[in-house]
């Protein structure tokens, strides 16, 4: 299995697409981050903040918000290629006459998708936090509270880095869910692009539908996997524990998101794997 995963990582990272996507999100981050940083530097909030809010964790948070819009789409394209390309080039027939179970080969590819998705999030976290701290220095992160209009929660730099890491990880889980969809569609199309773009179409359609102002939309929205793409915003603590006076860990929200993503991942994977082990390799 380790051998298979190593092969899949080699095949994946020797290709073009992953680097294009790394580059795209890094450029996007530059643009997005700067924009937010400027806006914040200029802005005059109706509460008084002592010193500049601009620092490493602030930038890291801004990048998180802006990159969350792009990351799922980018990851889809790369994930769709992992299986699809082997079908379109025909390497699948060479690979699948080797004495390895189809499910092992499938899992090796799936793990590659997981590693890539997490690496995208980790890359964004590390570069935005690192560069931000290097340029703007350390400092606390101010977050609006859930309780009172205009009141803020202050996270120390250390706390902020930990909660931001959690937020990036939760975004990663949601992005991995959509990437799983694209990857699993690769069992149905012998094409490099078709799985990614089909998944893209599904995700965008769902995002549009779930933003319509109908009652029935409100009912289905919590069950729709595209909704979890914004759940990372719920990972920042917004209250204090009244007893210990520590930041309140968003345990409920975290469990809910992870459980929901887990269920979707399991369903997509079951369908994709089921099809892959049974399918006729005619490419």
């Amino acid at each position, binding site marked *: 299995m380790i*051998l*298979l995963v190593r*092969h899949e990582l*080699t*095949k994946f990272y*020797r*290709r*073009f697409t992953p680097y294009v996507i790394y580059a795209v999100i890094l450029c996007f981050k530059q643009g997005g981050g700067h924009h937010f940083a400027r806006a914040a530097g200029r802005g005059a909030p109706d509460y008084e903040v002592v010193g500049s809010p601009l620092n490493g964790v602030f930038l890291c948070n801004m990048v998180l918000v802006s990159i969350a819009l792009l990351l799922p789409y980018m990851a889809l394209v790369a994930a769709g290629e992992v299986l699809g390309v082997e079908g379109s*080039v*025909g*390497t699948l*027939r*060479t*690979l*699948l*006459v*080797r*004495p*390895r*179970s189809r499910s092992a080969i499938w899992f090796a590819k799936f793990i590659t998708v997981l590693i890539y998705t997490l690496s995208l999030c980790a890359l964004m976290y590390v570069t935005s936090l690192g560069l931000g701290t290097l340029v703007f220095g350390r400092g606390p992160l101010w977050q609006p509270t859930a309780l009172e209009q205009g009141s803020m929660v202050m996270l120390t730099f250390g706390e902020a880095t930990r909660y931001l890491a959690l937020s990036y990880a939760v975004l990663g889980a949601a992005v991995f869910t959509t990437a799983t969809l694209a990857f699993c569609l690769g069992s149905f199309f012998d094409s490099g692009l078709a799985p990614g773009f089909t998944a893209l179409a599904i995700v965008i359609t769902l995002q549009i539908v779930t933003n319509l102002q109908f009652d029935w939309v409100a009912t289905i929205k919590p069950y729709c996997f595209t909704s979890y793409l914004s759940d990372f915003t719920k990972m920042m603590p917004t209250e204090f524990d009244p007893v210990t006076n520590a930041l309140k860990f968003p345990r409920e929200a975290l469990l809910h998101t992870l459980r929901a993503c887990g269920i979707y991942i399991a369903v997509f994977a079951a369908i994709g794997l089921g099809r892959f082990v*049974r399918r*006729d*390799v*005619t490419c």
Partner: protein
Amino acid sequence: MSEAEAARPVVLEARALTKDYGRRRAVDTLDLRVHAGHVYGFLGPNGAGKSTTIRMLLGLIRPTEGEAYVLGESIRRRRVQALRHVGAQVETPAFYGYLSGLRNLRMLASLSGRVTPDDLDEVLERVKLRGREHDKVRTYSQGMRMRLGLAQALLPRPQLLVLDEPTNGLDPQGMKEVRDLVRSLAHDEGITVFLSSHLLGEVQQVCDRVAVIDRGRLVAEGDVATLLADAAAGQARVGCDRVDEAAAVAGGVEGVTAVRTLEDGLEVDLDPNRAADLNAALVAAGIRVHELTPVRRSLEEFFLAITGGTRP
């Protein structure tokens, strides 16, 4: 097949294999038995169902009906075990074009077992890819890809080699090299080879036994020597004057098995090595020969012959 040969184990077997694509039947209740040590030809025109059969034998596609056995294991129930000692190349070779030939080889071969750098060197040498193994496959010609396809099938040392039209896309020299390689693998190393082809001559040259498939059905099976003897017999067209006299002379030449008269010459079935004798005999009898050309039978005609003209 001799008794000794028939006693050898069956390494590849199809039992009533059938494949339907929608309403089209690509392979129709096909039965095959390949004994160890043979070079087994699977002959048929384009679209006959050769690749579809090979895909079923290797577990790439599920038969609509029937079963396949490889090295004694059912491919449906124990695919991984069945393929442990098999090397295969199905249709045109496909590789990761952005990786080097060597890396492609190493990755594929390592899925079947341990390969040493020496093994890799030896195989590259055999398929004449030495010196190009570090180039990306994207830069390979069609012929080089075919060689790389052979190389991956040969790693690590299979007991059974399944090759789907292995000379497709090669130039005549390349074709000859592949045929020589197949013969040497079988005769020097005892590897059983199952090879499909749409070229009658190729099967004659390298195979011991042959199954002939047409439109998904098995139309003939047997020793190449007996089954194709008829097709192997040469035919020649002789352009000459005094046709009747010439026919009498030709009929007396050793190696000539049949003579038909045409308006301006003869059509003769003969041992191809005797063409010069025939010419000499005719000239000695004072007949003016202005043409002596070998006639090659097409695969189409061959099918007509062995199926008794039942092909519509």
